[in-house]
């Protein structure tokens, strides 16, 4: 069977692959949305932190023989801790200022991180093997699905929805949302907002690092692996609208799918399709798909 001249088996496999990519977009845009939503900072270092997650996993494996499963916890914790440090020492001083400064600071940090890793590990990147447990693949009939890719989708969805639940459905989430609007008042109500914010940034950063570890076995672990991805993720966040956590997740997954389809029907356009969608969405709904005007 064919759809627009494309065999349906190929189409099915492309959709699946799109979903896998969408999982990365979803985790990363979720992290960005949380950080933006709660700290009012565009975390330009997000891509670099994603890269650092992958590198921590790689270093842990090659230098210390730490396996993938441990790295899946260790890398987010390490990079998240670095995030906490950054928040405590730098970002904290910027909340009262225009957003611009947070953006610029994290832009500078991204340059530093990428530069340091490039200097240490070179540009061509390192290989991280697929963990043994997830090696191989299954034949789905229409495609050969590497088990690891399946795992990416499951892990990403679990983390995304867990995060969503935590923020939208718990008291902690209410504190977080209120804390972004008027931290002083929330403090006056008896909540330790600075700690909350530090934790939030650390968590957002840890999400990026988690995505990095997930990515390590499929992409080359490379100092610049995050820097191009992140621009697309920014576009995803704009399309989704910064207002909602669920919006970030769904938009991420959705755009992964759309991008996957573009790669079949018009591969040349797959790099810009996200941006084109962004323009259209903005024309129709300036606040983004899920954003509040």
């Amino acid at each position, binding site marked *: 069977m064919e759809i627009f001249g494309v065999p349906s088996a190929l189409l099915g496999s492309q959709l699946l692959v799109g979903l896998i990519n969408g999982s990365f977009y979803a985790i990363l845009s979720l992290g960005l949305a949380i950080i933006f939503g709660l700290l009012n900072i565009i975390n330009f270092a997000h891509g670099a932190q994603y890269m650092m997650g992958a590198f921590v996993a790689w270093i842990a494996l090659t230098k210390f023989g730490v396996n993938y499963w441990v790295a899946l916890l260790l890398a987010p914790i390490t990079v998240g801790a670095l995030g906490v440090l950054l928040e405590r020492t730098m970002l904290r001083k910027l909340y009262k200022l225009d957003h611009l400064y947070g953006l610029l600071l994290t832009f500078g940090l991204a340059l530093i991180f990428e530069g340091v890793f490039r200097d240490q590990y070179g540009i061509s990147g390192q290989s991280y093997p697929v963990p043994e447990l997830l090696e191989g693949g299954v034949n789905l009939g229409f495609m050969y699905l590497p088990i690891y890719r399946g795992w990416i989708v499951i892990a990403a969805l679990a983390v995304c929805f867990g995060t969503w639940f935590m923020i939208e459905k718990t008291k902690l989430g*209410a*504190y977080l*949302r*209120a804390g*972004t*609007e*008027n931290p*002083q*008042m*929330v*403090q*006056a*109500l*008896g*909540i*330790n*907002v600075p700690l909350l914010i530090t934790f939030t940034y650390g968590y957002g950063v840890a999400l990026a690092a988690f995505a990095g570890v997930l990515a390590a076995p499929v992409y080359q672990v490379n100092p610049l692996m995050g820097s191009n991805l992140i621009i697309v993720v920014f576009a995803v966040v704009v399309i989704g609208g910064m207002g909602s956590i669920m919006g970030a997740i769904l938009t991420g997954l959705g755009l992964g799918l759309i991008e996957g389809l573009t790669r079949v029907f018009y591969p040349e356009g797959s790099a810009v399709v996200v941006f084109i969608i962004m323009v259209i969405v903005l024309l129709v709904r300036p606040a983004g798909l899920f954003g509040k005007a």
Partner: protein
Amino acid sequence: MTSAFKPHPEMLRIQDLHSFYGESHILHGIDLKVARGECVTLLGRNGSGRSTTLKSILGLVGRRSGSIMVNGKEVIDEPTHRMARYGIGYVPEERAIFASLSAEENLMLPPQVATGGMSLDEIYGMFPNLLERRNSPGTKLSGGEQQMLAMARVLRTGAKLLLLDEITEGLAPVIVKKLGEVITELKKRDFTIVMVEQNFRFAAPLADRHYVLEHGEIIATIPAAELPQKMDWLHQTLGV
């Protein structure tokens, strides 16, 4: 000795309080004392430092020095978020309703700090508007509804020392009247209240004592009993 079981009769004592916003020195040595169950007001012209006094107690100013004792304990070095644990409830001048939370979420947000707070039913009974609009996003409430919500928010937590900044502002007379009843009731329940008010008609019958501020200093202390003879002077200094 103070303990949780035998609370200090002196709920709030401020001595030589100085406050700063950045470079500007706003409060120049405030001294005041409020006993348990008392209601006092801070009077003064716009910009005389009344709101700043309340904010200083909570640590919401740039820098402060001096002494602030709550229930017998020195708190000047405590971070803001710890203050609520001492049973302080604050209704700020700008209301500070959270846009991303619904009215009810706003209401439920502050953690309970002590027993004896009002129940939701009591609160909705007092402010029926809020019941009707409880699922509306906080900032979509009308100006007055936000004011009610800010007040209701602290009543639920069980805080016993209330710092109220112009709570009647923008409220219809009918609600102002109701608020007056609420405050009277709170006093009966042994709440301690520090109010900043422009609406003198509202404040005068409620307060045990009035502090008059000018340029960040207390220039007069007027017990309720002396109020009638001081009215002329107040008129002059405050234009009341």
